């Protein structure tokens, strides 16, 4: 293409992006069209990908097309395989995009649509996508080694151990909070519960099919599975309408939590082919299909956003979680803006498939932009709801009151119009008995998605769309739960293997049962506390998860910064230090506030003290007094956990700075562990078809 024409096109993209962004940022009117968010996002992604990512790839990392990748050098036809870049992109995206980018933006919408949207866009472009890309690059240059190994090789044993322990704890918190999201979506909803329950035998059936009936016919089996899942959504409706059947699936939070705990243990102990692998296939197809469908529906429908740009809750009084806009919007939205967990996928799994280094920009940076786009869509689905409805669904009973009439009065007093009749009508449209205090983000996202899908593809099917959305969220939350428990088990076995050889064997059954039980007990505890907490638990667990995830991101950026400095690229090290400095600021501030704040909705200790005082003076009603001691213990535990996370972070930073300072003053440091250059000999057309 002619050079000037290219310039004109990019100029037009820049102007359109600026215009869209200023429209969403400056609009203070009644409502704004969701298409502006989409336009702003796409323009920003395009410019960042074309210019910033390309510059990082060419100048900072100096990607070398002539260099053989680990997939080529170590090709074994199994885990190291040079693979077509679109296929690697698909694997990588499916691995990084979980339920996080759907839940975080929904919760952060309490601040209005603007703060979350800006953070998702800026955070992804300057932080998350950079982290993913540089980690992928460094791991590719090191035979696909994991983040923990790279930390150990490049910075030292402290960094490596911190990455390992951090990962393990994040896994525990993550699974607990995701379990809580599913429990809250199934609570007293026979339709949702029966549909989610049906996904288990369906997955097992597909697993059996792929293993024994038609081995290895993955697509065929998946097609059958997806058809069965859709049928399960419809059949859930029949169960809901049958008086005798619906009681079998109508449960309180606690029994559902125990069911999930038992399920999690079974999934970790059972062989992968029976449950985990088939469930993962189904959830991946569901995830990709639903995200594409949602994008089409939003573009077709161009819905109006009803949430104000900024709400009064930026002052820290928000009902969904306590805490001011800074730092809590940046903690609440981790996945979608920057997620440390991605560094674990970008090191280890993906580099072993990469056919050529030049694909690193598309896979590392590009896949994160797509995940960020998913987060934008979740933000749209949350904010197209009437704000009154949004707050009625997401505010815990502990904040707005248990009775519908109290909750409505409270929400109206904030200036958001909603009525008891409206909520009743909405619940009956969605095939639910009540939509009040359904915290965790899944039900409100499902209502948002159902109303978008309903308008785009037929309104009389609202209840069906709602439960489809719930099933879609539940199935890949449960996949993360299975996979996470299993990974936690492997990590624990690995650590215990240092003390007792037998415990380290991944197929030694007593060790499998023992370590699985420990991991499940770990997240099961937090899930249990979350369920008995009258404030819904999500308000405690989600920020904890956010802090942990951002801490892991900071560790990944520390490793990357250390490598950049050691390879003589100090002048470019700002590329990773910029997001690192921001992450350190927000996680440290958030941790400080979570530990020391006097606000009982923010500070763990002040909440514990407040509850102890109330318990001692006997003002608590009997049911609350019964669980109070456990809640107090948990608040203390959470405070120490937060303290631990932030200390680990500072230790790793200090370690990295020490290594950098030694290197810059000419003292010896651990050598660069990059594998030497081998020329690439792959036939270009074979993998790049």
């Amino acid at each position: 293409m002619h050079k000037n024409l290219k310039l004109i096109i990019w100029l037009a993209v820049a102007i359109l992006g600026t215009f869209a962004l200023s429209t969403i940022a400056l609009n203070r009117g009644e409502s704004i069209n969701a298409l502006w968010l989409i336009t702003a996002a796409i323009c920003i992604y395009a410019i960042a990908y074309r210019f910033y990512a390309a510059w990082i790839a060419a100048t900072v990392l100096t990607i070398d097309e002539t260099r053989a990748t680990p997939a080529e050098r170590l090709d074994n036809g199994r885990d190291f395989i040079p693979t077509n870049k679109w296929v690697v992109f698909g694997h990588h995206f499916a691995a990084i995009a979980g339920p996080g980018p759907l839940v975080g933006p929904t919760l952060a919408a309490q601040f209005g649509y603007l703060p979350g949207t800006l953070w998702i866009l800026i955070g992804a472009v300057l932080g998350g996508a950079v982290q993913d890309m540089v980690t992928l690059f460094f791991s590719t240059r090191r035979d696909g080694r994991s983040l923990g190994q790279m930390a150990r090789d490049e910075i030292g044993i402290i960094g490596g151990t911190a990455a390992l322990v951090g990962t393990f704890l994040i896994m525990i918190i993550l699974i607990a909070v995701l379990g809580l999201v599913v429990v809250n979506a199934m609570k007293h909803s026979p339709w949702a519960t029966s549909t989610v329950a049906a996904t288990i035998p369906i997955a097992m059936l597909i697993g059996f099919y792929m293993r024994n009936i038609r081995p290895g016919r993955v697509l065929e089996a998946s097609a059958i599975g997806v058809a069965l899942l859709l049928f399960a959504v419809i059949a859930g409706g029949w169960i809901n309408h049958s008086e005798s059947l619906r009681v079998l699936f109508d449960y309180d939070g606690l029994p559902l939590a125990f069911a999930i705990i038992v399920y999690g243990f079974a999934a970790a102990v059972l062989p992968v082919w029976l449950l985990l692998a088939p469930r993962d296939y189904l959830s991946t197809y569901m995830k990709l299909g639903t995200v594409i469908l949602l994008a089409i529906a939003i573009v077709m429908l161009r819905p109006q956003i009803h949430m104000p740009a900024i709400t009064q809750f930026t002052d820290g009084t928000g009902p969904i979680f306590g805490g001011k806009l800074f730092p809590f919007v940046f903690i609440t939205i981790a996945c979608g803006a920057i997620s440390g967990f991605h560094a674990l996928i970008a090191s280890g799994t993906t580099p072993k498939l990469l056919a050529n280094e030049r694909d690193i920009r598309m896979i590392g940076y590009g896949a994160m932009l797509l995940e960020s786009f998913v987060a934008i869509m979740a933000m749209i689905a949350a904010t197209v709801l009437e704000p009154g409805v949004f707050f009625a669904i997401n505010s815990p009973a502990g904040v707005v009151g248990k009775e519908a009439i109290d909750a409505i009065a409270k929400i109206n007093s904030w200036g958001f119009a909603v009525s008891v009749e409206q909520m009743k009508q909405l619940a009956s449209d969605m095939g639910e008995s009540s939509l009040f205090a359904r915290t965790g983000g899944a039900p409100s996202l499902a209502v948002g998605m159902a109303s978008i899908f309903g308008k785009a593809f037929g309104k009389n099917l609202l209840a069906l769309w709602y439960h489809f959305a719930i099933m879609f969220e539940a199935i890949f939350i449960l996949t993360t739960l299975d996979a996470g428990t299993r990974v936690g088990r492997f990590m624990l076995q690995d650590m215990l293997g240092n003390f007792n050889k037998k415990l380290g064997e991944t197929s030694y059954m007593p060790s499998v049962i023992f370590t699985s039980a420990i991991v499940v007990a770990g997240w099961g505890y937090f899930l249990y506390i979350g369920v008995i907490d009258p404030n819904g638990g999500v308000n405690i667990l989600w920020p904890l998860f956010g802090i942990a995830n951002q801490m892991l991101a900071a560790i990944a950026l520390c490793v990357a910064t250390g490598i950049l400095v050691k390879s003589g690229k100090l002048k470019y090290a700002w590329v990773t230090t910029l997001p690192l400095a921001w992450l350190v600021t927000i996680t440290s501030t958030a941790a400080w506030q979570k530990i020391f704040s006097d606000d009982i909705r923010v500070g763990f200790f002040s909440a514990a003290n407040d509850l102890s005082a109330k318990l001692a003076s006997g003002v608590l009603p009997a049911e609350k007094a019964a669980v109070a001691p456990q809640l107090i213990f948990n608040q203390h535990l959470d405070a120490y956990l937060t303290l631990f996370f932030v200390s680990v972070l500072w230790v790793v930073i200090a370690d990295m700075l020490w290594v950098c300072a030694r290197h810059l003053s000419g003292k010896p440091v651990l050598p660069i562990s990059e594998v030497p250059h081998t020329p690439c000999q792959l036939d270009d057309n074979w993998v790049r078809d």
Partner: protein
Amino acid sequence: MLNKLKNIWSNIRQLSGDDAYERYLAHYDEFHADKDAAEPPLSREAFFKQWQDGKWKGIKRCC
């Protein structure tokens, strides 16, 4: 056009692992078949078992 569709289909098969066994056989023919002490290639069933177990070691899913 037809070629493009075929390409997309082969990518989908590769992405899902549907053609993993065929790819393994191709790899076997290329690297192992001509060696004297070469073991015969795995059966479809045995290969799939190994492939699936290997695929699920380590962190494969994220938040």
